[in-house]
């Protein structure tokens, strides 16, 4: 895209919202607040399963997994724009479920699945069966096209090999969508959980303790030929996955940023030192204000990304800006949250740490701010 004249902003996406989005925002705000009070978040950290199946079932019953799935496949037929406000509220309350991975898996199917694959999996995902992605490899590259895992033809199927990391909620997944190379070309493969032996999964210790993630050893796993997604559309699918992930992460991060700021403000308004509320000191007041300004900017980017998501070009710019600015805003707000809680901030009991760890987690998955800015430079200049 080339901007020849005038103000940059004229060439970028504008902001708007849908009635459905606002409705979902309201419902999600109350739902996530009620279902995910912070003591529950902390209890689930100790829990092997990692999320509350009853809450998951409620989410399924609310129809949230089908929001961006066409009606023909059992979905609601809206778009990612309407999913974003839900992710935002989940991030705000640190409500952990496989909501994001299921949503993204559905997007991947829609981008590159054939009729049979979509008909098989989309209704099951909408009905609450967990799906997840296996894209990352030990080299740690955010470039989703950098794939070393392979699928080799064998009989009427394929034998896989390689290692995938950060396969979120793999233990509970019915479906894992993995990237592999087939004769040098990157493809996406649908792996049913039943084809994955327990020994192939290792629970990873990850920075965000509210989530569950696994390393998956593909060696020896076999899939039928019908489990490969369309070869011609795998590039598109990877882009769709990257952008959908970035949008949902940006939303989740905005919610988390909001909480980190609110949580810190509460402390600044109650903690006294030298006979004053610490919130009177500008050394704290100004940085928290800067954090707030950063949050509102990130939220505007996120809402614009949601609104422009499907638009060629404009959508990608908006989404990358959203993830990059959410990363910056969340990191800063959560970092100051730790500092401004003093000694307590350094403890595991202080929620500031939960937000700081969550921000690091999000930066580590699907690209941090600098990565997305580098992509943006190519798109903008």
């Amino acid at each position, binding site marked *: 895209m080339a*901007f*020849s*004249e*005038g*103000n*940059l*902003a*004229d060439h*970028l996406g*504008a*902001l*708007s*919202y849908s009635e459905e989005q*606002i409705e979902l*925002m309201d419902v999600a705000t109350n739902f996530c607040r009620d279902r995910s009070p912070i003591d529950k978040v902390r209890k689930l950290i100790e829990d092997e399963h990692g999320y509350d199946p009853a809450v998951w079932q409620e989410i399924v019953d609310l129809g949230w997994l089908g929001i961006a799935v066409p009606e023909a496949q059992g979905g609601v037929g809206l778009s990612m724009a309407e999913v974003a406000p839900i992710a935002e509220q989940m991030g705000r309350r640190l409500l952990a479920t496989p909501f994001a991975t299921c949503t993204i898996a559905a997007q991947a199917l829609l981008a590159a699945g054939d009729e049979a694959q979509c008909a098989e999996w989309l209704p099951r995902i909408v009905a609450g069966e967990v799906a997840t992605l296996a894209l990352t490899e030990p080299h740690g590259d955010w470039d989703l096209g950098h794939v070393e895992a392979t699928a080799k033809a064998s009989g009427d199927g394929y034998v896989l090999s390689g290692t995938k990391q950060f396969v979120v909620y793999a233990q509970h997944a019915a479906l894992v969508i993995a990237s592999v190379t087939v004769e040098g070309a990157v493809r996406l493969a649908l792996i049913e959980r039943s084809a994955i032996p327990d020994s192939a999964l290792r629970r990873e210790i990850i920075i965000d303790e509210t989530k569950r993630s696994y390393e998956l050893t593909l060696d020896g796993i076999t899939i039928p030929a019908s489990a490969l997604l369309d070869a011609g559309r795998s590039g598109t699918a990877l882009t769709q996955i990257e952008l959908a992930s970035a949008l949902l992460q940006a939303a989740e991060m905005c919610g988390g940023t*909001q909480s980190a*700021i609110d949580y810190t*403000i509460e402390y*600044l*308004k109650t903690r006294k030192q030298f006979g*004053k*509320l610490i*919130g*009177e*000191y*500008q050394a704290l*007041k*100004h940085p*928290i*204000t*800067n954090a*707030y*300004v950063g949050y*509102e*900017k*990130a*939220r*505007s*980017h996120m*809402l*614009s990304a949601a609104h422009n998501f499907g638009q060629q070009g404009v959508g990608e710019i908006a989404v990358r*800006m959203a993830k*990059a*600015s959410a990363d910056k805003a969340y990191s800063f707000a959560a970092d100051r949250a730790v500092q401004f809680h003093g000694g307590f901030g350094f403890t595991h009991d202080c929620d500031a740490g939960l937000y700081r760890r969550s921000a690091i987690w999000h930066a580590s998955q699907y690209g941090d701010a*600098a990565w997305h*800015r*580098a992509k*943006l*430079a190519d798109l*903008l*200049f």
Partner: protein
Amino acid sequence: MSSRPTPAELADYEAQADAWFRENTPKDPGFMLPLTFMEVSTDQQFDFLCAWQRKVYEAGYLGASWPVEYGGGGLHPDFQRIATKVMKKYDGPIMLNAIGIGWAGPLIMDIGSEEEKKKYIKGMLNAEDIWCQGFSEPENGSDLGNAQLKAVRDGDEYVLNGSKIWTSLGDRAKYMILLARTSNEGPNKYAGLSFFLSPMHAPGIETRRIKKLTGEYGFVQCFFTDARIPAECLMGNEGDGWQIAMKTLEYERGAKVNLAGGYFLKELDAMGVVELARQSQRGGKPLLDDPVMKDRMVDFMMDIQALNLNNQRRRMGPLVQDRPMGLALMNKLARTEMIRELTEFSLSFQGTRGGYYVDDPCAVDNGYWHRSYLNSFSATIGGGTSEIQRNIIAEHVLGLPKGR
């Protein structure tokens, strides 16, 4: 106020405005135009901007939503919003009489008397009467409530003594919105303040131009020595000054929609900065090839886009539920700081030529970038410094305690 227009009416109006601004927006006048009303320095700039404002007003695109009986267009505010949007689209020059149409005007429309509306509004809109603001004093800037210029009632007149400083357009203005002290009694320093719509051309009022950081002129110090102004210049009652001043600051800081329309601070052309980076050389290559520079530039583009989106979002109720005033109150802070940082960044592109300044034949763009950077402080200091803005956001939006 007239009823809400239909989308079709608005579209019609937009097409009209579009045609008008396309046709009438002046091309490069051949001298440097100011980015803000605070930068108006030469007669040439002043005359040009007065003429432009008058023309926009006469075409109906300024004060469009103010009542006809005071000189306005009597239309619904949505029309004015559109006119302003189109004005910006064509990158027209700024409205010079910012203090008049931007703050004094809305104030008079809100709480002024019938006589005040009749007397002042039209002259503001057509740029016949330029207004200035006498708030800051040599000893009291951020601490505005401590203003000391004395106003003592004497029959039908007030007698003024003291000094105001940093008065933008002070040497060009016909009227001043003036914050003065009418009493030293009262429970606190704010209680003794009063607000005047004061003439500037009265015996005993003198101005002295102050040379700015940029080397230009633009603001003055005003001296009041037994200056007499009519008692009806008092706005509201004695002692109301602080509340009224705060109201004008709401307009000034962008917390309220400026009802007359137009705009007073020009957007920096972001693509111009990109272009500059593209044309600048480092090690024989375009500067924009340098990944570090590129990265910083993207960061600025994101910031600019965020501020534009914020501006759109602040009018969308459901998207600002949590802290409805947040976006409005941060607008000035975020935008002015961004412009300061971006113009500073642009100086680094110029290599050795960064050493030149305005009017040297070798200066890049005749020193535009240097001048813009130096001038950018006008907006991070004027109208309440960025530090004070942060206090305001912290206290009024985030609910943090006031510092003592």
